[in-house]
């Protein structure tokens, strides 16, 4: 059934369909409508869950960490400074290997205060050991939430489902609301490997030594480094599991495709624009316009930012005459983080093959600065014509 709702509602409906047991959240714009929705579902009895109105984002994730450790399927959501305030807990959740799903409704971070969209918040959490998935429309938001629970629980790694604040969170558009029965078929109840319980006492996340150590049975147990190595190793193999999730989802719901990247008119393209989130759909409009000028250009949305699908990206960009990376965040002091990651993927897979494309970087929409489609098209056109700058170019800057 298709409904017309805003992006936050799409996320909330996804969480409801996944039958999350424990939800904890602290209000922050533009996440609030999402968690308000969930509190409505819980209070009205539409959803059987515990909704905890915590006193901070740090506590929101604390509740989720503890609830997940006790065996619950959990959810939280935040934005901007809320996510930054959580940072310690974000690292804790992945180190504890808890399948938490959190929506990040992307918003600029302070200072100065700004409530509008960019992606500095989630990008700054890149190295926390979470899976990060970016959405470009409401269908992707609701479907990704559902897939995220399956994947997170399969690999025991938490997932951030990221979508642009306001641009998606507060915009209404139609999307298919999956049937509960189908979601139930896709996503079985959470069966944790271990859940805190007095009949099988275990002490979780204790101090762990630099070196390995014998356990009470005389078996050699990991040191801190082994535990952290396994997180990295399993994040890398998560790419395969994500493909499995996508296939499984497509089998039941009849939609879905390549989980890592979303190419549009890329096959015959000489130039490819790359980005994360809703800007990649906007770029489709630019691509269509430039195609009318006989410029062979395509756009590739990157769905998984972590684990980074380096091979899929390199394969898709092999032999292109140019790659133009559009970002709503920057690694201050250098360039866009995606730009750096993308260049390293290309270098790894294409260096010396003669098919290594040159790459350029645009920064756009920082702090909600409107990205006019004409400006975006113009930037793309200019980058295709010649190298614009060695440094990242800020679109729409009025200095």
């Amino acid at each position, binding site marked *: 059934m*298709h409904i*017309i709702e805003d992006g936050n509602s799409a996320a909330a409906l996804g969480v409801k369909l996944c039958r999350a047991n424990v939800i904890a959240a602290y209000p922050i*714009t*533009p996440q609030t409508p999402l968690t308000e929705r969930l509190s409505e579902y819980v209070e009205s009895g539409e959803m059987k869950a515990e909704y905890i109105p915590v006193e901070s984002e740090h506590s929101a994730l604390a509740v989720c960490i503890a609830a997940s450790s006790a065996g619950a399927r959990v959810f939280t959501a935040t934005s901007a400074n809320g996510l930054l305030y959580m940072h310690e807990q974000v690292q804790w959740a992945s180190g504890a290997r808890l399948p938490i799903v959190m929506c990040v409704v992307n918003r600029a971070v302070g200072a100065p205060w700004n*409530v*509008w*969209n960019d992606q500095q918040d989630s990008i700054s959490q890149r190295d926390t050991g979470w899976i990060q998935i970016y959405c470009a429309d409401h269908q992707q938001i609701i479907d990704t939430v559902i897939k995220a629970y399956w994947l997170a629980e399969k690999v025991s790694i938490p997932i951030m489902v990221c979508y642009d604040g*306001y*641009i*998606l969170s*507060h*915009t*209404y*558009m*139609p999307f298919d609301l999956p049937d509960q029965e189908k979601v139930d078929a896709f996503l079985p109840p959470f069966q944790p490997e271990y859940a805190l319980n007095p009949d099988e006492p275990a002490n979780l996340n204790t101090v762990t030594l630099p070196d390995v150590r014998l356990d009470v049975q005389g078996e050699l147990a990991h040191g801190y480094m082994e535990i952290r190595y396994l997180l990295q190793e399993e994040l890398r193999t998560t790419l395969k599991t994500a493909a499995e999730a996508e296939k499984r989802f497509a089998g039941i719901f009849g939609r879905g495709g390549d989980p890592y990247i979303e190419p549009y008119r890329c096959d015959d393209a000489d130039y490819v624009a790359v980005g994360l989130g*809703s800007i990649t*759909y*906007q770029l*489709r*409009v630019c691509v269509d316009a430039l195609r009318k000028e006989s410029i062979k250009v395509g756009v590739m949305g990157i769905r998984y930012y972590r684990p980074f699908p380096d091979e899929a990206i390199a394969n898709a960009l092999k032999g292109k005459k140019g790659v133009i990376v559009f970002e709503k965040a920057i690694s201050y002091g250098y360039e866009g983080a995606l730009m750096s990651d993308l260049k390293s993927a290309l270098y790894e897979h294409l260096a010396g093959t003669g098919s290594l494309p040159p790459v350029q970087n645009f920064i756009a929409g920082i702090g*909600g600065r*409107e*990205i*006019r*489609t004409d400006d975006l098209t113009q930037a793309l056109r200019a980058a295709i014509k010649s190298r614009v700058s060695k440094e990242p170019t800020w679109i729409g800057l009025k200095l």
Partner: protein
Amino acid sequence: MNKDFIEIRWHGRGGQGAITAAKIVAGAAFISGYAGVVMAPTFGTERRGAPVMTSLKISKEKIYDLTPIETPDIVVVLDHLLLKEANVTHGLKPGGIIVLNTPKAHESYNFKNFRLATADITAISVEAGLPHGMVNTGIIGSLERATNLLGIEMLIKGIENEFRTRKPQKNSLAAKIAFERTVAGD
């Protein structure tokens, strides 16, 4: 007006329900076969009484451009006093339509190059039994009279569905009366 892709900009005040009105029209459009429907309120801090804008794009195909409307085909103004506070015709395409809630006569306005439709929705809504100031359903009737876009029946259904727990009949009655009484110019 190109009926494959229509851009409607709504001008109201915080709390007046412009978003709900746009959402009803969006729903009716989607059911009528417009696969692409995107409704986006002004982003930021919404304060009751302050002027607000909402963008509604209706397209036969999925819409990928979510940026605010720059050149609307139609502007809907829920309060005639907004004419003094906001440049409601900004970017309006030549020959574009203005749907205006006003107690004043149609003749008292002179919008060059645009087509004006007026009705006293505030009075009509009270007549339909709604509380004073609730104009977001009535204005839909005026919009349909002025544009002939989706058919009044479809919109009435949308209104009654949206307001199913909050006086659906009175709300749809306001739209019906407004549809009858709207004065639309050429």
